[in-house]
Structures are given as structure tokens and as C-alpha cells.
């Protein structure tokens, strides 16, 4: 038999080869474009019995594309293999602890997945008339009521798609309220420890963001705040517990200072986990609260979304809420309709918000009930407090008040002794089987590691995390940070050079 040559067509990357699956090996996974083969297909469509008009009969020549977009051409099997392998190259809450501070990566109940998959929830058109969507309206109305109870407020909009959109909504409400009173203050006060979305949202709402310094306790510097408060201040955005995990114990005088100057208090409630059933923003004097349902209420984060960022407000701000809102039909027990608040700032979302995320959060709340929510807070704080105390002596706590659901440690001392940065310790922790904590946030702490174990991690997991954090620190001091700087060595890729990637931008695949 003569020598036969292998056709070129066949020596392209193979979608069946699994060398990129960490179970098997450490190679890279080709892109869908490399796995594409001209003419291959996964799709099939329903038989309709309709006339088969040609493209030219359906689309005017000036609009008709010469060829469809250059998408990959794959078999369903290859697509499944590719995406399944990609999934195996990704960490998740389902696979282990994820103690990212400020992110509340708790267990995402499968129960809520089942709810979001209910066909009679998942297949309603958002423009269906009220009488066809009474289930949805009742659900949203009850969720609104519950979120108001949790936050000590009067009414809420469920439209914002995430926390940041909630912030913008809240600030526009603030603006509308001031305008309704003939005022146009231009500044919003924001602590230096605040999440970056706070100043960014203020800017988008047309406000100047003015930084409020923290004091030695890591709390709002009350004197500085008092000096900053003026007629030109629309309000203060505050997180409490704040982003160093501490409760702003001066909240009463803080609120008084703002209110005295006709300023409003905005509560960044992205992370309510510590205060559920224990403290309510409304009771502390806040007028506006946004909540991240994808944190406190365990709707999964999806690798970066979707979330939901409802905004709840006190009585005096309710007339300005975005709409429409689900409201009871007077005289018809149990029936609801969409209503636009009288002085509404308008719409925030193209429809009604991330409805299926809202349904998940609602199921989560029904499951726990009022007392269950309080138990969450107590346990979340217990885990954080225990973990923090276990790290004492090895990590520093520049702001050492009693922490709530999370705490910020500094590894500056370790860095001095070993050269290992927070980043190095974080990467080394991966090799110990843990996702790293949040690094370098908040900005006011040097070599910050922000740790939030959440309530769904067992005491054994919290202890194991403590041991791992202590071990990597001890190792760094012993070896001058060598192992930490080389980490992670157990992952499909090693330390990624983020700076180089930003310099040499490659944002699409181009062969």
C-alpha cells in the first residue's frame, strides 16, 4: 500500500480531545473559532409548513447581507464538549468556599433554580395585560412588602438590574426629592472606604462626589463629616456595616447631621447579610436603600451577573419611585395591576427588572422566614468574628472594632517580613483549596484582604480557611515569600500578567 497523506482538513484542533480539562491535563482549550469546520452544524428548526420565500423576496436588496456573520460552525457534540470543558476550568460556590469580601458568596439554593425554571414564570411576556400575569404581580408585590419590612422602609422599586443601577436610581430619587422642594444641591458625600460604584453612580446622577475621610477606627470621621455637610449637599451614601466590616456606631449623630441640613441618607445595602432582622436602615434614619439580591438573598452571581438591585425608600420618597409598580386593585381582594407613581422619576429598566432573579430571592425568603433571616445574620457574623480572631497575631487589623459579617485584614506586616504581597498570599491560598478573599479593597487599607465567610460555610470550613491563611503566612515568613510568589502552580494557568494584557490588547479572536 502506498504512503498516504493525512488530509489537512483533518489536522485542525480537535473538539473531542480533553487535554484542557483539569482532570486530564493542563493544556489550553481552543476557541470555538478554531474548532469550527465549514459546513458543520448543530441547528435544526421546527417544520412550519410555510411557503419558502427566498431571502431576496423577504429583504430589500439594500438591507440584505451578502453572507451571514462569520460565526463558528460546530456540531452540538463539539459545542457541548467545549463548553463543558470550559466549565471545568472555572471555580464556583457549588464546588467550595468562596470567601470574597463584599461579595457574599453563600450557597445558592437549588430550590431557587427550580423556581426560576417554572414554565409559568419563565415564559410570561413582560407586556402581557395585567389579567394574564396576576401570579407575577402578586409575587412582586409581596417581595416589595418583604424588602420594605427587612429595610424598615415604605415602598420599593424592583426594577434595577444590579446594585450599581440601584444606586443610580436612589440618587435620582434623591435629586427628584430635592427638586420637589425647590432645591438643587450638587454634592453627595461618600466615605473614602466606599465601593467604587458609589462615586461612579453619583457622577452618573449628575452629582459631585465628595469624599468623607475615615477616622482611626475605620468609621466615618464625624467631625470631618459635620464640616462637609452644607446646603449644597444632597445626601450621604453610607454602608453600614461599612466596607471594613464595622458597624458605624455613630449612625445616630451622622443621620442627625445630614437631616439637619436637609440632606438625605442613602444606604448602600449591597451586603445586608450582617443586619437581617437585627438592624434596619430605615430605623437608622436612612431614606433610600438598595439591596443586592445576588448577595444577601443568594441568587447566584452567574460569573458576573445577572443580579437585582431593588431600591426601597421611606414614605416621603415613595411618590417618586420608578414605575410601574404592582399595586392592589381597590375593592378586588388579591388582584393587582401596574400603576405609575404620581411623581415617578420614570423607568429604570426596559421592562420590570430581572424578574426571574426576583423570583429566586422571593423563594429564598419564603424558605427562611423572618426568624431564618435573623439566623443568617447571626451566623454570618459568628463565622467572620471567629475567623478574624483565629488570624490575630499573624495578620494585622488596622481597624480592629468588632467585625460584622466580614473583616479586612492587612498583610502589610507579612509583606515587611517576607516580601510576599497580599496578591501572593491570595494566589498561594488557591493551592490550599480555597478561593482567595477580595484583595486591595477597600482602598484605605494597605495590603488589604477582605474576608467574608458567609453563614453557609460550616465551622469546620471556617477553621480550615483560618489554618490555610495562617499556613501561607507562616510559609512566606519562612521562605521569604518564594512559594507564594510562584503560586498558583496547581491551576490550569499560572499567575496571569494583567498589566501586559492591558498594554497589548487582544479583545477578540482573530486567528
Amino acid at each position, binding site marked *: 500500500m502506498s504512503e498516504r497523506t493525512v488530509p489537512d482538513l483533518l489536522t485542525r484542533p480537535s473538539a473531542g480531545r480533553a487535554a484542557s480539562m483539569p482532570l486530564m491535563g493542563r493544556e489550553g482549550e481552543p476557541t470555538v473559532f478554531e474548532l469550527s469546520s465549514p459546513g458543520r452544524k448543530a441547528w435544526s428548526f421546527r417544520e*412550519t409548513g410555510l411557503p419558502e420565500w427566498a431571502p431576496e423576496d423577504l429583504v430589500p436588496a439594500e438591507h440584505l447581507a451578502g453572507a451571514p456573520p462569520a460565526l463558528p460552525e460546530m456540531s452540538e457534540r463539539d459545542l457541548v464538549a467545549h463548553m463543558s470543558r470550559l466549565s471545568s476550568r472555572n471555580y464556583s460556590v457549588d464546588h467550595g468556599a468562596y470567601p470574597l469580601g463584599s461579595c457574599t458568596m453563600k450557597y445558592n439554593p437549588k430550590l431557587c433554580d427550580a423556581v426560576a425554571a417554572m414554565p409559568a414564570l419563565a415564559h410570561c411576556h413582560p407586556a402581557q395585560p395585567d389579567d394574564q400575569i396576576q401570579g407575577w404581580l402578586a409575587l412582586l408585590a409581596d417581595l416589595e412588602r418583604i424588602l420594605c419590612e427587612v429595610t424598615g422602609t415604605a415602598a420599593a422599586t424592583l426594577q434595577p438590574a444590579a446594585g450599581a443601577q440601584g444606586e443610580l436610581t436612589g440618587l435620582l430619587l434623591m435629586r427628584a426629592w430635592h427638586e420637589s422642594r425647590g432645591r438643587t444641591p450638587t454634592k453627595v458625600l461618600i466615605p473614602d472606604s466606599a465601593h467604587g460604584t458609589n462615586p461612579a453612580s453619583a457622577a452618573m446622577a449628575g452629582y459631585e462626589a465628595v469624599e468623607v475621610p475615615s477616622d482611626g477606627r475605620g468609621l466615618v470621621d464625624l467631625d470631618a463629616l459635620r464640616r462637609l455637610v452644607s446646603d449644597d449637599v444632597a445626601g450621604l451614601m453610607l454602608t453600614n456595616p461599612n466596607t471594613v466590616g464595622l458597624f458605624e456606631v455613630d449612625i445616630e449623630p451622622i443621620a442627625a447631621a445630614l437631616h439637619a441640613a436637609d440632606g438625605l441618607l442613602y444606604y448602600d445595602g449591597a451586603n445586608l447579610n450582617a443586619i437581617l432582622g437585627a438592624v434596619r436602615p430605615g430605623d437608622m434614619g436612612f431614606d433610600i436603600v438598595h439591596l443586592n439580591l445576588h448577595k444577601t438573598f443568594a441568587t447566584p452571581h452567574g460569573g458576573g451577573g445577572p443580579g437585582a438591585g431593588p431600591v426601597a425608600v421611606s414614605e416621603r420618597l415613595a411618590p417618586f419611585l420608578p414605575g410601574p409598580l404592582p399595586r392592589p386593585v381597590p375593592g378586588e381582594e388579591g388582584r393587582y395591576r401596574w400603576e405609575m407613581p404620581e411623581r415617578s422619576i420614570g423607568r429604570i429598566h426596559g421592562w420590570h427588572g430581572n424578574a426571574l432573579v426576583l423570583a429566586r430571592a422571593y423563594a429564598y425568603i419564603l424558605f427562611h422566614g423572618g426568624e431564618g433571616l435573623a439566623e443568617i445574620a447571626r451566623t454570618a457574623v459568628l463565622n467572620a468574628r471567629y475567623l478574624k480572631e483565629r488570624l490575630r497575631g499573624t495578620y494585622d487589623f488596622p481597624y480592629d472594632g468588632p467585625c460584622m459579617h466580614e473583616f479586612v485584614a492587612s498583610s502589610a506586616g507579612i509583606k515587611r517580613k517576607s516580601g510576599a504581597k497580599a496578591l501572593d498570599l491570595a494566589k498561594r491560598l488557591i493551592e490550599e483549596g480555597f478561593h482567595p478573599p477580595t484583595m486591595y479593597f477597600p482602598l484605605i487599607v494597605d495590603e488589604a484582604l477582605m474576608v467574608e465567610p458567609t453563614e453557609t460555610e460550616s465551622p469546620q470550613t471556617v477553621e480550615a480557611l483560618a489554618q490555610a491563611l495562617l499556613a501561607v503566612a507562616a510559609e512566606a515568613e519562612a521562605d521569604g515569600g518564594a512559594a507564594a510568589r510562584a503560586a498558583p502552580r496547581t491551576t490550569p494557568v499560572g499567575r496571569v500578567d494583567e498589566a501586559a494584557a492591558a498594554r497589548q490588547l487582544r*479583545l*477578540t479572536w482573530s486567528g
Partner: protein
Amino acid sequence: MGSFVPHTTSEIEAMLGFLGLDSLDDLFAHIPEAVRLAGGLAIDPGRSEADVLDRLGALAGRNRPAGPSSGTGQLVCFAGGGAYEHDIPTAVRALAGRSEFVTSYTPYQPELAQGVLQALFEYQTMLCRITGMDVANASLYDGASAAVEGLNLAAAATGRKLVWVSAGVRPAIRAVIRTLCGPRLEIREAPLRDGRTVWPDDLDQPAALLLAHPNHLGVLEDVAGAGELAHAAGALLVAGADPVAAGVLRPVGELGADVAVGEGQPLGTPLAFGGPYVGLFAVKQAPYVRRWLPGRLVGEGQDSEGRKAYVLTLSTREQHIRRAGASSNVCTNQTLIAVTTAIHLAWLGPQGLRELALRCARGARYTRDALLRIRGVEPAATAPTLYEFAVRTPRPAGEVLEKLAEAGFLGGLELTREYPELGEALLVTVTETRTRADIDAYVTAFEKAVA
């Protein structure tokens, strides 16, 4: 009562003991008494998983869903207008549901997140290819927020404050633009004539022109013309692009759009009562990307040993670095839906996407022809449409929809309130899910409803 808290009583005692505390309450002792909640939350006691499912099932049972197309939908769907009932391939659903995608956080630690990062990189590339643009971000909230960010980008890039928005942009999106851009930008509306946007002669130093293609009446716009106008006036053209229509229409990037925005829902996401969907956002390369592009971006880079690795990049644009000066406040976006969209696009491929668009268009053509044969039903616009179209009805549109609902159809969307100039009018949408039998039954019911 349900709970996901693992702690047993003895474990809690052990932890409190370590902390030197007597009770869980002591953890909150430093909080001023005045702000502590006495008496607990007035929320019903918790219940079991089964009870929650029972209750949610009962609630859901009070809806009349308009899908899924294969299965148990109660109403046969002829409504669209920004939210579409398409078949979702079982493989797309299964893959997008993998818990590694669903329960991970934003990929801040690239070594543990190559899966999501690569999927987003593939999404960005595919989005560029269907829009004809150079760079796409990793998603925004929805079509409305994408439009808002498109206008914001244009304003920032041009240093101007006036934006022209076509009346063909979906009314709710225009409302969101008014709410979110209102405090900083001046928004003016360009009306429709026979379904197409008429831009004013004097554009008056605008930052942007925004249109939708096809627009809310289903009509194909003159994108290239709008692009020329915009560029002549020193403005950017922000074009709303439909990802399904992209299977047959020339990409907006080829027609002069500087920013493409859109709603990704039709590719893999159910109607979902309006969300979560995904905002599509793509731009022409220079000069917008490094400074003005909103949202997350994934880049290809290398690890310490020179292996290819994906990573979030250009974070200097973002709020967590630039704070008040960021290109946008967006943080959590819609990653999972973007990943879903990418999987669906790869499942379709070029021919599948084209076929999908054609099938929708064929159904719409057939439906439109049939409806227009009904006495008193007239086109609300004569300009070419693709798979949505507007008709005038001889009876009040709301009434027609009610009768259609009685007959088992979600018959379309009422246009009258938002477009009073059309009179009593309906927007009718047909997707690949509708068979000839569906349509014939619909047309029969329609005829009765307007009789």
C-alpha cells in the same frame, strides 16, 4: 422551617467559647440599642422546600404564560416588541446551567476562572461579528441600559450634551433614557414618517443619533443615511441592532454605526417576564475603547510561563479603579446571559442564524399578507419590515387583544397609546416557533375579533 445554616448548637457554643462570648446576641452588643430591631421581622415563618415550591407553583398558576413553544404554553405568542418567544435549544440550556458558570463570581482571579473568561472572550468576538464592530464588552444589563451607555459614551467622546433619539426606539427604552440620561444630557426625539425616522434638518451640534434597526414598528431604517448625517454633524451614530435580524441584514457596523447596542434576549433566554436579559454593546475600535467603553472586558494574555490565558482588562476605565471618573458605574452585569448568548450563537452558526431570521421573516410575511386581507385591517406603515409589523385595526386594539386572548393567543402589542398618530394599531410578531397551522388559527381568530 428551612435553613441552609450548617451550624449545630454545640458548634455555635464552641465558637462562642473561643471568642469568649456568652451568646450570639453578644456579637451585636456594640450596636446602639436605639437602632436595634426589637421583636424580629414581621415576615411569615420559614417553610420547607416542598412548601415553597407549592406556594410558588400556585402563584405561577395564576399566570397565563405565552410559551414555551414546545410544551405547555397557554397562549400562542404573536407578541414581541423587544421580548421574543424563540425555541431555546436543550443543549444551550444545559450548558448555560452548569453550576461552574451559574455560581461563580466575576472572574477576578483569572487562574480559577478561565472558563467564564474564555466564554466571554468568545462572546465578545461573536458579538463583533454579528454587529460588524471591532470591540464588544462583556455585557450590560439590557437593551435599555445599552442604549443609555451608548449615549453616555457619545457624550463623553464628543464633549457634547444633545442627543437625538428616534421615535422608532422602543418607548420603554426611550423612557429609561429620559430617566437615566435626563440629569446630564438634553434629549430630543426624531419622529417617524411611514414607520421610518425623520431626522431634523438642523441637528444642532449633537453628541449622538440613536435609532433601532428594525425599529419598534418592525421597520427597516436607513442606517447608512443616519450615519452620514451623524458624522457630518460631528456626532456618533448609536444603532440598536437586532441579533436575530443580523442573520440576514447588513451589519450596522458596515453601515456607519459607531456604537452598536441591543437586546440579547432572543438568543437563548426565555421571555422571563422581562428579565434577566442582556445588553449588547460594541464599538468601532479607536478612540473609544481605552477611555470610554463601559463595562467589563476580557482580553487574551499570558500566564507566567507564557501560556495563553484570559483576563479582565482595562479595569482602569472602571468604577473600582477610577471611581467618580469611571466610564460607567456598571459592576455586576449579565455575564451568564452573555455566556448563554455565545453558546446559542455557536449552536446556530452562520447558516443557522440566517435560517432563523428567514424563518421569522417568512412567518411574518405569511401572517401580514393574511391579516391585510381581513376587511378593515390596514398596514400602519408601508416601509419594509422583517418579522414584526404594525397593523391598524377597525376596532380598538385593546379589545382585539382581549378577544384574541380568549381564543388562546397573545395577539400582539397595543401601539395606540405610544403612537397615537397610528390610530388603533397593533404590533404583530412572528418567530420561527409559529407554524402555518398556528398562524391560520390566529388569522381566523383575528378576523372574528375585528368583525
